[in-house]
């Protein structure tokens, strides 16, 4: 006799296997059309604006305040321990470049642009616009997915660099105003103790995150079912999955980069 718990677990595993298979087929199609089709410049630029430019404000605010709070907390702790704020620049820059810059940027973009992508493709799916693309001589992967993948892969690393700088700037500002650390000391801490590899560590991670967010958002959008309610459900699932995967992947990608010396 089937036990309801084992039946539930079995069904969930089957669903997961099916979803992974479908996502793999989608990826195969993305690679196929990436190399075989004409570049959809207009759609790619439009997506780059949606994913990158429209996320600028929220990324700026997040990273700026993160840098500020990081500086404030570490400076205060350092003061308590050593009576003066030591290595604040090193700590803020190290944290921003290696972890907080890429991870926070990707989480923010997954929540904002990832949701937009899933909702847009999902709405197109339930209103037969995806089918219409086929009948009008266009493959949806070529017209919808490839431009979004390109936009994510270009804009996320750029946004991360922007977030890194703003975070460090925020930290420097708090150091100067609240902790009496001159900007020259703050910057000297960065130049002395940080290497280009520290920047590359965080920068390279964003390509993996960008690819993952694009895959999750597009996959969820393309598999939307059931009208407006289905679009809402798919969008929520895409955002939650992307955010969790950013955190999970962060550990594994960091481990690989550390192992290869980056």
């Amino acid at each position: 006799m089937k036990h309801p718990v084992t039946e539930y677990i079995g069904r969930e595993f089957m669903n997961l296997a099916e979803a992974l298979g479908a996502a793999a087929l989608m990826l195969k199609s993305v690679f196929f059309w990436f190399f075989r089709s004409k570049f959809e410049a207009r759609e790619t630029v439009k997506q780059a604006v949606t994913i990158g430019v429209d996320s600028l404000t929220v990324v700026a605010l997040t990273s700026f305040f993160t840098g500020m709070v990081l500086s404030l907390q570490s400076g205060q702790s350092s003061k308590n321990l050593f009576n003066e704020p030591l290595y604040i620049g090193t700590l803020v820059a190290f944290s921003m470049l290696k972890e907080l810059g890429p991870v926070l940027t990707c989480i923010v973009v997954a929540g904002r642009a990832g949701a937009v992508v899933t909702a847009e493709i999902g709405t197109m799916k339930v209103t037969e616009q995806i089918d219409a693309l086929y009948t009008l001589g266009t493959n949806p992967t070529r017209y919808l997915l490839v431009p979004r993948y390109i936009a994510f892969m270009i804009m996320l690393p750029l946004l991360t660099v922007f977030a890194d700088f703003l975070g460090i700037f925020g930290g420097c500002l708090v150091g100067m105003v609240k902790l009496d650390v001159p900007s020259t000391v703050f910057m000297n801490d960065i130049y002395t103790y940080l290497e280009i590899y520290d920047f590359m560590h965080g920068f390279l991670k964003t390509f993996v995150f960008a690819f993952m967010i694009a895959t999750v958002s597009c996959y969820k959008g393309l598999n939307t079912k059931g009208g407006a309610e289905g679009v809402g459900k798919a969008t929520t699932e895409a955002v939650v999955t992307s955010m969790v995967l950013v955190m999970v992947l962060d550990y594994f990608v960091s481990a690989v980069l550390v192992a290869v010396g980056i």
Partner: protein
Amino acid sequence: MIEIKNLSKAFGEKVILNDISVDIKEGELFSVIGPSGMGKSTFIKCLVRLLRPESGSIIVDGQDIASTSNEFALARVRRSFGYLFQEGALFDSLTVLENVAFGLKYLTDIHKSEYPRIVKEKLALVGLKDVEHLKPSELSVGMKKRVSLARSIAPEPKYMFYDEPTTGLDPVTTGMVKELITDMREKLRITSVVVTHDLKLALEISSRVAMLLDGKFVEAAAPAEFRQSENKAVKEFMEISGLSRE
């Protein structure tokens, strides 16, 4: 010519189309009627391979598209297709001009400088003017359907597929769409497949009408013969539709 042989389609355990065979000849207007949920849309979507049938063949001008997974071969065959979707399926992010010109860009070699003229011409055919700059969200249901029709006929396809072409339209627009479908067939010799629950429309415009019930065509005949059918389901459907046998 479209030859359909032993076409079957199921969703999970539920069989929607069961071993259907029918030939749609050049210049013919073939209508499929039947109550909602009987697989009419599934049938027409299989014909253009928006859905992949479980078995059987769909031979379009000598090429079987039922089971092929060659994207380019499918795209080549689809170049000769025009499809009117039930809800229009206009691209929300594009203007009317861009929507109607979409097929011209991807299905023809026409230079883009020609698009505005062709779009204007096709929109006039469906009774619309000065709407090129509007977005689909600014159009009424009837206008959306007419723009969608203009979009599907713009690349001048050899075959037209209409999924519930008059659903949601007012009587005047219904008359216009009916006339347009008839004109497309009579003047341009476009082979057409119409899927509708409107039996009156099907009997007025078609050269052959088929009734789909429980996954099979229970009747397929010219309108005059169809009216005289002794099939129980056809008789009932005629009665429900308020049509007499004469």
